[in-house]
Structure formats: structure tokens, C-alpha cells
């Protein structure tokens, strides 16, 4: 069997709810344990051992929650839209379940990014909120997540709900580059990118490491939640059929 066929076989098997249920169950333990470990290491390192910023002092430390939450809020959205696109094209039910799990954790990350940004903005900028392009587009992202969740729960027929919410998710992808480039395209109060740019990150190495660990922690949390929640959805669907 060639490598291509092996991958194809694995992918097809993963598409079946029964197989995914066991796959997720097997891996849930280590992803969640590793997420916990990363949170512990990243937060301790970032909040207690990383040096204070030359300009903002200790208040910059909220970066260790704000940046991973904001980055993952966008990453999770793109993954959700890809799941919906696969579901719409190949008529797979499982990917819609994964998308619905992603929507919940993505909405939580977006809300956290908005909240921590607000808390950070008050001492540094002097305001909790300003209708800046970056802040507004991130708020629209939260509404997209909430709209997706409501739409997929509101319609009684599963297939119709999947189709409608899937299209919403795909259309909403247009907001992702807008969020990322909002600080480049328009004059804004929010500063430019520190890490996600085609240049060396403009943050000292001893501050960058805990930040990367926190990003890994948030990613692992998202993966663990998707495993857990999709398993629950598979079980619920089984119960309904009985």
C-alpha cells in the first residue's frame, strides 16, 4: 500500500463517527494533560519569571493571555470554516460536529481576547474601548461565532442547519484577513504585529518563550475540547436514533 493510499485510508476511517469516537477518546487524555502542563509552565514563567517591559512595566504581562487568545480565536475560526467546507462538499456529518465544537471554544477565546485587551487598554492607552478597526473587527468575529452557534441550534432539521451555518462560517472567513491587516491598512490605536509578521519577532527572547508555550497551551486546550465535545455530540446523536 502506497503512502498516499495509507493517508487516504486513515482519513476515510477518521470520517466515520464510530472511529472518531475511539480516536478522540484515546488521545484526549494526553492532549488535556499536556495542555494543563503548558498552562502551568507558561503562566508561571510569563507572570513570575519573565522580565518586566521597559515601557509598560508589569502590565505588559497580560500579553500571555491576550495574544494566544486572539491568535487562536482567528486560527479556530479558519479551522471551523474548513470543516464546514469539507462537510458541504463531501456531505460529511462528522466535520459539522467538529465545527460546532470549534465554534464554542472559538467564541470563548474571542471573548477572552476582547476582555483582556480591554483590561490592558485601560492602563496603557487610557481607555477600555475605542472603535478602532482592530477592536471592531474582533468584536465582529465574536458575533460571527455567536451567529454560527445560534443558527446551527435554531433550525430543527440537522441537514438544513448544517448547510445554513456552514455557509455563514465560510462567508465569515473574509473577516480574518481584515482583523490581521486592520493595523496595517488603517490608522488605529492598536499597535502592529509583534510575532505574526515576515520579520524577526520584536519581543525579547526571554519574553517570547513563555508566550509560545501559552500559544501551545491554548491550541491543546482547543484540541482537547473538540475531542471531548464531538464525542458528546456523537453519543447524543446515537441516543436520538434509539
Amino acid at each position: 500500500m502506497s503512502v498516499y493510499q495509507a493517508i487516504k485510508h486513515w482519513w476515510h476511517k477518521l470520517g466515520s463517527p464510530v472511529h472518531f469516537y475511539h480516536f478522540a477518546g484515546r488521545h484526549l487524555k494526553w492532549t488535556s494533560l499536556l495542555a494543563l502542563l503548558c498552562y502551568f509552565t507558561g503562566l508561571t514563567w510569563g507572570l513570575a519569571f519573565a522580565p518586566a517591559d521597559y515601557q509598560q512595566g508589569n502590565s505588559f504581562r497580560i500579553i500571555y493571555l491576550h495574544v494566544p487568545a486572539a491568535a487562536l480565536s482567528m486560527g479556530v475560526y479558519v479551522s471551523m470554516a474548513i470543516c464546514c467546507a469539507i462537510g458541504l462538499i463531501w456531505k460529511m456529518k462528522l466535520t459539522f460536529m467538529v465545527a460546532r465544537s470549534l465554534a464554542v471554544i472559538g467564541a470563548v477565546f474571542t471573548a477572552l481576547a476582547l476582555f483582556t485587551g480591554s483590561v490592558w487598554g485601560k492602563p496603557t492607552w487610557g481607555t477600555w474601548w475605542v472603535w478602532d478597526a482592530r477592536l471592531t473587527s474582533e468584536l465582529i468575529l465574536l458575533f460571527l461565532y455567536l451567529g454560527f452557534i445560534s443558527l446551527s441550534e435554531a433550525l430543527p432539521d440537522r441537514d438544513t442547519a448544517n448547510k445554513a451555518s456552514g455557509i455563514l462560517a465560510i462567508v465569515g472567513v473574509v473577516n480574518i484577513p481584515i482583523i490581521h491587516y486592520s493595523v496595517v491598512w488603517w490608522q488605529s490605536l492598536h499597535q502592529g504585529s509583534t510575532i505574526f509578521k515576515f520579520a524577526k519577532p520584536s519581543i525579547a527572547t526571554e519574553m517570547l518563550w513563555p508566550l509560545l508555550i501559552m500559544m501551545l497551551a491554548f491550541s491543546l486546550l482547543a484540541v482537547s475540547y473538540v475531542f471531548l465535545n464531538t464525542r458528546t455530540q456523537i453519543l447524543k446523536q446515537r441516543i436520538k436514533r434509539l
Partner: protein
Amino acid sequence: MHPLRRKRLMLIIYIMLIIAIVVGLILYALRQNINLFYTPTQIINNEAPKGVNIRVGGLVEVGSFKRESDSLKSEFSVTDTEESIVISYEGILPDLFREGQGIVAKGQLTPENRFIADEVLAKHDENYMPPEVKEALEAKGYWQHDQQSQSTY
């Protein structure tokens, strides 16, 4: 790929393209409304309306800050390195406010292009480093304030 699936894939790509073009055009048309503030150059060129609430942003010019000793009234000029404009403000300035720092002020423009601000917000840049590193950079002459804060207004 199955023809039906290929058709659905093309349909999704087509929808996304149309939406991207529509949103792109809307944002392009609204670009001046999306910009949070006017630059001093735009104000000198009379691109900003007078007598209504607007925001102006730029770097606080080094050596321009004056404060009255018996009140919270202060006066300073902001620049985008080409033009500069004088801002007067009464109130408490944010912690990060200092000369050379990027700021955004909300208020009104007088007919003689002075800016009366009722709110001053500080911008900060995307560079994070410990104080010792900054001192070392300064000592070696690698720290150029103008260059460092170019991107911040």
C-alpha cells in the same frame, strides 16, 4: 474528484471570491471612516472637518510639552515627522504619555488649526524588551527613538 463535489467546491470558492470583492469595495469606500484619526499632514492640507469631534494622532514632539503650574492645562505639539499641530488639553494624561510617544487625541479643530482635545490616549509600540536591554541599546547607540516609533502613529 467526483464531478458533483467539484461543482460544490467551485461554488464555495465562487461565493468566497464574490464576498471578498464586495467587502473589499465597501471597506475601500469607507476607508476614511475606518481610520481612527487624522494625521497632522491631513489637517494642514484641510482634509479634516473643523468644529466637529475628530481624532488626531502622531508623536509628541520632543521639547514641545508645556504645563501650567497651577492647573491641569497642558499644551504640546504632535507630528507625523512632516507636519505638526498644537494640541491643548485639560485633564490627566495617560501613564505612557511622554515626549516622543505616539498619542491619539479626541477633540475639535479651531479655524486656525489648533486642536482643543477633551481626551488623550497613548499608543504603544509592538516592541517588548526588558529595561536593561533598552539601556544597553541606548548605550551602544542602536536606539533611535524616531526610527523605533515610526510605526506607532
